[in-house]
């Protein structure tokens, strides 16, 4: 593992950087409870579509403050959602403020968040949505859902692909024929259409945990077919190797040969393939949530933060900061692509 990291670093600095960037991103969304200034469904009813809060160092009198501060804002025009700042009082930015208790993944409780300002002022780094909820906090919490769905989805479809591909390639014959025909039929459908049709199999209004599991299921059902085909091809060539024949002549059971002699040799491909396929899952989740078929309000995901902008030019014009969710997706995708490309080169035996 350490050697792999070193090689990655030597091969491509940007990709090494991407790896760390992604780790930080996952870390941040994992600890969203501490890092987000507000809870994802905390509403400021008097501040809908609030633009990103301006953070000041100089007050209206021109005096410098070492601690950055914000002004409270009041709505100026309720129709066009313009706000003006109230210069009478400054609200300094505070770190490790205490507030309502939140639970980190049901286990730990926290009362302190990284930063915040006193009420009634608010610190909305990326503005607010139609209910006056802080977009920055929702993006952090949403990252938790979007990123975890993609990881679990990749894991499941990988296991499925490994098992079916391995069995098809190893045993061959009629099993191979049946499994591969199945894979081919699944691959005939454009994934978006298949995704929507599978979604149509279930009622539209499900509880949030059901929707979460459903999305994971749909995405991994779509994703496994391509992997199974490639793994099968690799197993076909590996099973002719001498060490597999040796293991077989020693009388090892089939599952042991597959698990300990064949699968480890597909790992270098698998690591690359996992990295490259994660973006597809992130996009899939975002697409479903974007269309209102995925994660439902009040829970945030990167897709459903964007969803209020669809087909509604007014919202898009009033609150372009909602598009930041798209930038989050884009940034994560580009890092995954960079990392995947570098991994492919590093792990390719031709380049050793």
């Amino acid at each position, binding site marked *: 593992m350490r050697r792999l990291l070193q090689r990655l670093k030597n091969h491509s600095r940007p990709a090494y950087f991407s790896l760390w960037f992604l780790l930080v991103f996952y870390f941040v969304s994992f600890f969203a409870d501490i890092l987000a200034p507000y809870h994802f469904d905390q509403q400021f009813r008097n501040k809908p579509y609030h633009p990103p809060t301006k953070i000041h160092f100089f007050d209206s009198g021109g005096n410098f403050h070492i601690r950055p501060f914000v002004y409270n804002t009041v709505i100026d025009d309720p129709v066009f959602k313009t706000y003006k700042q109230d210069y009478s009082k400054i609200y300094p930015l505070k770190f490790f403020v205490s507030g309502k208790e939140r639970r980190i993944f049901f286990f730990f409780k926290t009362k302190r968040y990284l930063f915040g300002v006193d009420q009634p002022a608010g610190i909305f780094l990326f503005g607010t949505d139609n209910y006056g909820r802080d977009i920055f906090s929702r993006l952090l919490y949403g990252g938790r859902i979007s990123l975890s769905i993609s990881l679990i989805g990749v894991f499941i479809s990988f296991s499925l692909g490994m098992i079916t591909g391995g069995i098809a390639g190893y045993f061959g014959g009629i099993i191979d024929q049946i499994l591969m*025909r199945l894979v*081919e*039929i*699944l691959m*005939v*459908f*454009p*994934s*978006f*259409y*298949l995704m*929507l*049709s*599978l*979604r*149509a*199999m*279930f*009622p*539209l209004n499900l509880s949030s945990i059901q929707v979460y599991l459903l999305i994971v299921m749909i995405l991994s059902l779509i994703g496994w077919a391509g992997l199974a085909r490639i793994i099968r091809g690799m197993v076909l060539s590996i099973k002719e190797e001498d060490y597999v024949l040796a293991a077989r002549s020693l009388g090892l059971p089939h599952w042991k040969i597959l698990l300990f002699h064949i699968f480890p040799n597909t790992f270098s491909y698998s690591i690359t393939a996992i990295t490259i396929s994660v*973006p597809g899952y992130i*996009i899939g989740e*975002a*697409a479903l949530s*974007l*269309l*209102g*078929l995925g994660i439902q309000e009040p829970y945030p995901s990167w897709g459903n933060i*964007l969803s209020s*902008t*669809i*087909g509604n*030019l007014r919202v*898009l*014009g009033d609150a*372009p900061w909602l*598009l930041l969710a*798209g*930038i989050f*997706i*884009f940034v994560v*995708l*580009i890092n995954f*692509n*960079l990392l995947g490309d570098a991994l492919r080169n590093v792990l390719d035996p031709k380049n050793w």
Partner: protein
Amino acid sequence: MKKLVLKRLLQLIPMLIGMSFVSFIIIQSSPGDYFAQMKMNPEISPETIESMKVNFGLDRPILVQYLLWLKNMCKLDFGVSFAYHIPVRTLIKFRLKNTICLAIFSLVISWVIALPLAVFAGYREGTFIDKIFSMLAYLSISLPSFFVALLFVYFISKTNLLPLGGTRSIFEVDASSFALFKDYMEHLLVPGLVLCLVNVGGLFRLMKNNFIETFNTPYVLAAWARGVPRNSVIFKHALRNALNPMFTILGMEIGGILNGAALTEIICGWPGMGSLILEAVLSHDLYLVMGSLVISGFLLIVGNLIGDILIAFFDPRIRIS
């Protein structure tokens, strides 16, 4: 050549049957008895229900239903949409035309942009210009289509440069066909450009890798050594061979573009297959979902077939073997 095409066509048959069976199973397993639902729905006339009952055997065993549905499908009868109260075929025909126009438009534009740039960058591999193009290609690959579409919609809503949504804004009866065409193209431009922007990066990278690979082969080196002029080496020796794998890509792209197109259509308000299936899923319009799914799978199969035939046509190695 004829034999190869014939063989590929024959291979299509089990594929189509399998595909239609999977679509049928997916829709059948959706919750609720939709036949009962139809009867309850006052908007659907008893005659429609009666004719569908006869045509699709809705009260008979599943397997019979599937065979009947398959038979009807061969006659291009996909049943009646519950939400629109018109045959699914009519709906799909109208939407399919738009989606294919969109796909062809964006395919043509992205190929016209990507191929020359790829040859240009491939010839100057490792230079500053090559690196710039590669970086741009990276950005294009990582951009989700819905995000680009939203950005375009935002931009256009601010500037009003182009019309948004629908396929036409001229509704005069006596409008000339040129004006209608121009109007259609203007509406096509936004979703078309979005798709093109998302696709062009991947194409560029594939083509560049192909070009570099052929550019380093012995026969290109031999051509250099014989003193063949530079343009001739690039365009006759390297480019023509580098293009061959691209025909397979062209076939696969048709499927890929359907995926990207669906979200783009929905966001840009282009009435195509993508927005059709979304509406169908949201209103639980099962025959419409089934029809769209089958047609989308059919398009993908046809795309792959076109790719295979093209590559056999252009690459003698495959044609002969």
